[in-house]
């Protein structure tokens, strides 16, 4: 018998606030995120300033970089109480998707060693330079001793981390996994996108509406607590949603937005629908991966049109929190769970015969939400179902 995988908790922080209530409030009111430029010239949608010590002890903060603190803080604030209710909290796994992880720390560590000399830098910061540092610090802080994994697959990192968590539970290796994504703004990332001509100067991001071709980067954390339905019911958990379908593939092209083919995204959407055992018309709406880079946005609309022969509603959540790279789809997944809980969609547009209607609508009676991620690294799709 197959195991149902359900979502029993979410946590998030982004430019749209530092908890899921603020996040839903901004998204459901269609508030656009605002890019801010810092003294180094980096422009992006930032997580608001946080007093980390509110939820983390001094021990938790010592020698931990900002990227890690964000995940720790988010989990401590919104999901730790739920983790403690699990039958065996220490056996809860952690699966994190990220494109860059602690890139700021890695770069900074080496930069400092060149400026100050390798014998002058703090050895305790070396632990922050490996990609699995954020997850490992969280495992230590929360005492989680089973699955500890970091997954890097570019824009699809978070969905692949969620798919990994789903497979882990379905495979009988565990009964609960924290899965999602995290990304931190960094100058290296900003410069990479800027020199590739992928950024716009605007303070707002408006996929499908703007004449501008480019995106605004952002940062954030999005985490789901995944459990087997059996485990969740046994402990009387409130079930928020079910993960019913997933698909992941690579497009065969390793370069940024140079592949016109819709084949990859079509196949992940079809795989997810097949696994969910539903027809395309049962999808209430799609949270797209659109980020303002027109090549990708148009490719996705074309791919959706190929899978959804008639009409379907779409929304581009990145207009709220920016292009958070490896974390974006995790934020979309949290938004989808909250949408199912509130039984209302984000403001969405109808896609019909390959064209988007101009007017925005809020839909009711939400049953299934599809979430797409694509870009530098491949394609991935998951489908969440109302409970």
């Amino acid at each position, binding site marked *: 018998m197959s195991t149902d995988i359900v979502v029993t908790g979410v946590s998030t922080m982004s430019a749209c606030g530092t908890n899921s209530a603020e996040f839903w409030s901004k998204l459901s009111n269609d508030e656009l995120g605002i890019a801010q430029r810092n003294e180094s010239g980096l422009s992006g949608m930032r997580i608001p300033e946080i007093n980390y010590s509110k939820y983390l002890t001094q021990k938790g903060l010592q020698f931990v970089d900002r990227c890690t603190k964000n995940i720790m803080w988010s989990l401590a604030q919104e999901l730790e109480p739920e983790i403690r209710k699990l039958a065996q909290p220490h056996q809860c796994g952690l699966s994190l998707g990220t494109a860059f992880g602690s890139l700021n720390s890695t770069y900074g560590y080496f930069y400092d060693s060149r400026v100050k000399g390798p014998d002058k830098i703090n050895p305790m910061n070396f632990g922050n330079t490996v990609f699995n540092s954020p997850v490992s610090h969280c495992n230590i802080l929360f005492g989680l001793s089973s699955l500890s994994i970091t997954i*890097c697959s570019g824009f699809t990192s978070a969905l692949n981390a969620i798919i990994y968590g789903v497979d882990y539970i379905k495979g009988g290796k565990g009964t609960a996994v924290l899965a999602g994504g995290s990304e931190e703004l960094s100058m290296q990332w900003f410069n990479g996108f800027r020199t590739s001509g992928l950024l716009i100067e605007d303070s707002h991001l408006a996929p499908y509406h703007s004449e501008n071709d480019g995106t605004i980067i952002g940062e954030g954390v999005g985490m789901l607590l995944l459990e087997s339905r059996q485990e969740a019911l046994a402990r009387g958990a409130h079930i928020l949603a079910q993960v019913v379908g997933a698909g992941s593939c*690579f497009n065969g092209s390793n370069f940024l937005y140079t592949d016109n083919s819709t084949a990859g995204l079509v196949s992940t959407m079809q795989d997810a629908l097949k696994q969910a055992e539903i027809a395309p018309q049962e999808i209430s709406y799609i949270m797209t991966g659109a980020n303002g880079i027109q090549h990708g946005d148009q490719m996705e609309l074309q791919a959706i049109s190929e899978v959804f022969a008639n009409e379907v509603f779409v929304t581009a959540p990145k207009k709220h929190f920016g292009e958070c790279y490896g974390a974006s789809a995790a934020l979309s997944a949290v938004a989808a769970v909250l949408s199912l809980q509130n039984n209302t969609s984000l403001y969405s547009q109808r896609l019909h015969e390959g064209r988007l209607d101009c007017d925005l609508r809020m839909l009711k009676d939400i049953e299934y939400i599809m979430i797409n991620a694509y870009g530098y690294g491949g394609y991935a799709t998951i489908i969440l179902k109302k409970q």
Partner: protein
Amino acid sequence: MQKHRVVITGLGVVSPAGTEPETFFSNLISGKDFTGPVTLFDPSPYTTNRGGQVRDFDPKKYLNDSEIKRRGRGSLFSLAASRMALAQAGIGDRIADGTRTAVVFGTTMGEAQVLEQTAIIAVRGEIPPSANYPMYPCHVLATNVATALNCTGPAMVIPTACAAGNYAIGYGYDLICNSRVDMALVGGSDPLSELAFTGFSRLRSLTSEVVRPFDKNRKGILIGEGAGVLLLESESSALRRGAEILAEVRGYGLGCDAFDMTTPHPHGEGAFIAATAALKNSGVAPEEIGYISAHGTGTKANDKTETYMLKRLLGEHAYFTPVSSIKSIIGHTMGAASALEAVACVMSLCKKIIPPTINYQEKDPECDLDYVPNIARQVPDLDIALSDAFAFGGNDCVLILSTYR
């Protein structure tokens, strides 16, 4: 749903002990030390000038000019080793229909050399070349392979530091077991990193002499580089193709110390959880294990903890099971280490001979197992091998391989 058996039909190696699996393995068996002076950067500020540097690798032998262009050293390693694995499996240069082929790689720092080069340029006050930026995200280690070899199934990197190769093999195993794909190129890759030299030097983990795992006078690690790749395949796919099956992946297990970022749990808690899960997942009894490919870094803490964990796992059988560490021969190749160790295990299962732990001189009372000191050993009845790997953050993964029947 019936799970597929997962077999190994191809191997690829880029290592300090040679390129190509046969060269690599015969050099391991020779018991020579393949660490030596590092020339890729100036090692003079550090505790040692020695490391496991790859010296005989010519990317042009495996890759064309466009594949070499704008690729970091880690990607060149992973792509060349993948091509070797495909060739051994009788598939050729590219997979004709790669829709059901995954690529999963492990690494510690990805293309760290590119990041280091960028920082060095920035320290000089110059503007780093824009071509460096697309090489930062570590997933390129997998997607460069997927692009070149036409693999369009799932492609990702699992950067769980020094255990990453085993994690990648484990996920490839799962993807095939669960019918997501028919084949998976899995393994690990890490180029020699000055950042790693800096960090381990500051942690006082680098030895100033040779690597002596499990020896009483062991002083620490030497950093290495390389890539190890295995082509995993469902049994039915391999049989349908008439491929030669080298060995079988029986299962794996994960565990986490949840203890400290850089120091292993004194009782190897995460490692024990991972090893116990691996035995359960593979359906193998402790007394069936015929060889243990150790993590065996040569640090005081690791080797003592690992010995403790193995005795806890296997009981009395631990004393009758040969344990060896090829890190004594090639250094610690970081995210590639467990993948190269898995390749060595497959070769051991095929040839019934296990590589030694070299530089072993004096027994440590706290490390009292059979470490196959200095000379390779014939084990005619070798059937099942366990390969353990432990990483920063206490991220541990244990793999179990066997001969195919």
